[in-house]
């Protein structure tokens, strides 16, 4: 009985806790900026982001939620890119948490109502296993999204990939654009093939 109440509560709390953690982290980093104008500007962006996320929950206005997340991410990255200097590992972890927050919210919206309803044990165990698979994939994605860029950076720093040349930058940009375009077009291509 305790687990039936614990799982939906944990699911509903997870995105909120993650968001609070991200906002706290961003506030700490932005307030470490010595220049008052930069700090004030970035704190304003952060405040707008947090307000947008809270309003989206209170007013059930889903349209402004992405604006809030983008503003929180932009204030953190802006603080590091313009003033503090980018610390790659912590920036990757921050970004990974930001993506995970969106994923956790979707999982919570999908699964929490199911665990709150009175269900037969068979149905409940199947929903349990589906949730387990989804969480596992999310953890793998979060870990890979931190580890792979660090490996890429290590390769570049070790000199295996010449990272500082213009042809490398152009090739990297071209490859990324191609990957994103491919990923964007894949659903419609696969539908046409089917």
């Amino acid at each position, binding site marked *: 009985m305790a687990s039936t109440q614990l799982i939906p509560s944990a699911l509903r709390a997870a995105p909120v806790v993650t968001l609070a953690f991200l906002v706290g982290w961003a506030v700490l980093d932005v307030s470490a900026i010595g220049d008052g104008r930069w700090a004030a500007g970035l704190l304003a962006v952060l405040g707008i982001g947090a307000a947008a996320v809270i309003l989206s929950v209170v007013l059930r206005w889903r349209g402004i939620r992405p604006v809030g997340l983008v503003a929180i991410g932009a204030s953190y990255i802006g603080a590091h890119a313009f003033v503090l200097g980018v610390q790659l590992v912590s920036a990757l972890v921050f970004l990974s948490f930001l993506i995970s927050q969106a994923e956790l919210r979707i*999982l919570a919206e999908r699964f929490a109502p199911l665990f709150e309803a009175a269900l037969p044990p068979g149905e409940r165990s199947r929903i349990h296993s589906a949730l387990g698979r989804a969480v596992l994939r999310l953890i793998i*994605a979060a870990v890979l999204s931190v580890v792979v860029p660090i490996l890429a950076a290590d390769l570049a720093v070790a000199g295996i990939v010449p990272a500082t040349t213009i042809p490398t930058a152009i090739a990297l940009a071209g490859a990324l654009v191609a990957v994103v375009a491919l990923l964007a077009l894949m659903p419609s291509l696969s539908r046409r093939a089917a």
Partner: protein
Amino acid sequence: MRTPLSSGLAAASLGLLVAGLAFRSWQVVLLALPPVIVLALGSLFPPARPRLVAVRTLSRDRAEAGRDVDVKLVVRNDGPTLDLVEIVDVLPREFEVVHGTNHAVVSLERGGTMPMSYTVRSPVKGDFRIGPVRVRSLDPLALGAEDAVLPTDARLVVAPTMEDLRRTKLQPRRTRPWFGQVSSRQLGEGTDFWGVREYTAGDEVRRINWKASARLDRLYTNEYEGERSGDVVIVVDARRESFIGTETDNPIEHSVRAALGIAEHVLASKNRVGLIVQREVLDWVPPAFGRKQLYRILDHLTRVRPGGEWPFAHVAWVLTRFFPRDCLIVLISPLQDRAALNAVIAMEARGYDVAIVSPSPLAIEWRLGEQRPEDQTALRILRMERDNLVSQLRRVAQVVDWDPATPLALALRRIGTWPRPS
């Protein structure tokens, strides 16, 4: 189908890439990788197109409002294995799921089945369709989805609850030459004693009044009051303007409940009952006897929804052309406009007997409102207006001003026999 999250991740990745190149920061360029990695992982396991079959069974296909109905849904996967599939059995918005859930998110292997069972309850009457079943195959990172609709509909008729009027005296004043249970104030076949007369050849022996015969030394026969039946036409005002309150607590729902109770009671007394409903169309059922007629009336009342603006003049027109002249008209209306007064006067002038049951919209509004002191003043003014209309109507017809929070039988019993004998 791409989800907004996948589009957002692609946009974030491109934005970070462009920003990194613009500021010549390789660290920012590397930050473009995490969204791409999540997108790539999502694309490795794209959601398969769902090919499912659903079978639904209901514990009953007719139920009274407020009664529980069990639904069993079995979904079978005839297509490829679905990593994560969301199944929703679409219910009418009036329905409330009281046990279990009509929604599931599971994994379904090829040939696998997913049984779902839940209990629904509808607080309002209606002819409802349960279904279709909507299915969405998802990738676990919520980056893509494939939708399907399984056309599995089931019909559930929810009948209105019935007012219990068994102990109420409710009968038409004028009778027709058919046997029934209404005293006709004429000699005939019946059980109520009328008088005695001299015996004539052919009189039944069991009708001879032996006491009177012994006393007067001649044979006398008992006479009885004939019991006949009459016609009652119930007019339900379900116009848009009569709708005040919530879906379950509004004058139209209460009118339907009252109409069904009256129809059941009058039909049980072997009278004919007809029905006219003012809704989006002017709907009517010609008068008839018996259980079948009750089901016919129930069927029409189940479909009543607020709508339309048919004036009472049209009801009068239908009455004069399609219904007998000497019937009792029971008008069930919240009396929201004064047109009712003119209509009732016109009907009385044409020779109809009219009785009115009026579910009070003021009582409903007051219950649902915040009941502030200024509302009390407004209520008092509105009540005066309503009392004025009711007292004007009482000059030509008998009116029952009914607070739907109390049983109709109680409101009818307060005024004795209804309608009043002339």
